[in-house]
């Protein structure tokens, strides 16, 4: 059987700069995969390529055996691949419930049905108490949850999370990890970019490491984290940050 997602020799060039270089990997149904790497390693670009926000310069991307490389984002989303954005920007002019309702529209016959789906999802992520609040006024921790709720309301088979833990307090991270465990139990396959490693250790049995656009490691999380080039990649970043 085909894997849920297979990325084959995908590259992306911006002018002379290669942001992603011949990256290949596959994701099986039900997996939880962590994606790590220093800033500028090409993690977000890879997400853009898979979800249609950028077209690959080379290579192929298949979802359930069907090539989706170069498809428009909305078509990919309707197929069952959804993403969150690193910089969360809820729809202005809409409250929390309405924001999530929008996400449920494409798979709902009526606005009423979409609203019901949205209410359920708000319950799952723990935002039910904020349903009538202006989405743009939420604090960052809740905005991240809203972002996740919107992605979930599309009822995805495969969900790409771009730093949903970024900017959260340790307590909020705890909370988000619990929510993601529930999401996994609902049968959603997850790929998550994270800078914070704790959630990766806790949630993802498998981790990919990107560095300068190349996939330098792919394997069981514990093992990958110990490998010399990974430590080096991270140490390199640590020094440049200082």
């Amino acid at each position, binding site marked *: 059987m085909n894997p849920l997602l297979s990325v084959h020799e995908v590259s992306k060039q911006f002018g002379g700069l290669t942001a992603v270089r011949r990256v290949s990997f596959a994701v099986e149904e039900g997996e939880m995969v962590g994606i790590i790497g220093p800033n500028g390693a090409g993690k977000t670009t890879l997400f853009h390529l898979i979800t249609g926000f950028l077209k690959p310069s080379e290579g192929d991307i298949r979802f359930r055996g069907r090539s989706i490389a170069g498809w428009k984002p909305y078509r990919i989303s309707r197929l069952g691949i959804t993403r969150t954005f690193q910089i969360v920007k809820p729809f202005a002019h809409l409250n929390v419930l309405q924001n999530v*309702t929008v996400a449920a529209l494409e798979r709902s016959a009526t606005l009423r049905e979409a609203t019901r789906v949205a209410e359920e999802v708000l319950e799952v992520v723990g935002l039910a108490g904020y349903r009538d609040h202006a989405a743009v*006024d939420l604090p960052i921790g809740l905005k991240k949850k809203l972002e996740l709720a919107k992605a979930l309301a599309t009822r995805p088979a495969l969900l790409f999370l771009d730093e949903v833990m970024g900017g959260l307090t340790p307590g909020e991270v705890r909370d988000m990890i619990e929510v993601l465990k529930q999401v996994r139990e609902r049968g959603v396959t997850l790929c998550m970019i994270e800078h914070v490693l704790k959630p990766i250790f806790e949630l993802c049995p498998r981790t990919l490491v990107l560095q300068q656009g190349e996939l330098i490691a792919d394997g069981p999380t514990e093992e990958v984290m110990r490998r010399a080039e990974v430590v080096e990649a991270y140490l390199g970043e640590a020094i440049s940050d200082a």
Partner: protein
Amino acid sequence: MKEEKGALSKSASAVPRRGLGWIVLAAVLIALPFLLQNEIYYLDVLIFFLLWAAMAGAWNLAGGYGGLLSLGHALFFGVGAYTSSLLFVKLHISPWIGMLAGAVAAAILGAFIGVLTLRLKGPFFGLATIAFSEVFMIIAINWKDLTQGSQGINIPYTPGLANMVFDSKIPYYFIALALCALPYFTAKWLERSKFGYRLIAVRGGEAAAQALGINTVAVKVTILVISSALTAMAGTLYAQYIAIIEPLHEFSFALSVQMVLMSMIGGTGTASGPVFGALVVTFLNTVLRDVLEGAQGGLQAVVYGALLVLVVLFIPEGVIPWAKRQWRRLAGRVAS
């Protein structure tokens, strides 16, 4: 954090009172022209107010709800006016049919401009609308055989329902009222339909909307088509009422800007905003005409400009959303 109803949804408890309000409003709107029957001047002002509200309301569907900042909506107005007038004068086709023909022509034009520019990011759409209205103005001026150039087209005075020419102002009033109601109720529909939710989402963030499966280009083109068609219908009524159309006015940038201004003053992306904006502008126009009798038109523009600056500086969301917020705050204070 404040409770926010957002652009959508209303609380159910307000419905009976609201229903009564609608009945009273309808009665007033129906009685008004008959009460003003002998006050031709004020009836004329009223018709213009409704016509402005219709145009601003039509602009607001795309410009407000859809966030498509069109600066050339006079294009659609002019296409509506010219289509029905030419069909009427040259081919003796009833302006009622001409109004629909104009709406269809404007819709096609809107779709064309939309498909061409709405997949691009940046200011291309707004610039394209200006360019297209300028082009159509030049065509209307120079294609003299068809349009009689800057001389314009006269609508012959042949009263009759089929000709949409009347010897009383009252029928014009009711047509204008209907054209004003059309964008208003379209806006209300947007606030509780799947399409409207998609549209408001696209306005709030295009990439985010796409990630959720929304075909953003299709949504934007659709609202532009609706907005163009409704603007064109106002154009036809204008031509029939004034009985003369000329390219320098019908396709003018000033006219386009007027639609934007009225929506901004009242509040873009709200159903009643453009109506209120039209009311303010009509009122100012009338008062200024009385006060500044004989003064040049430039002074009116100065007053408009000052008004817009004040609104943008102090209540950028527009008067209606601002007033609603104040009202809610006041109501909340009374309740607690």
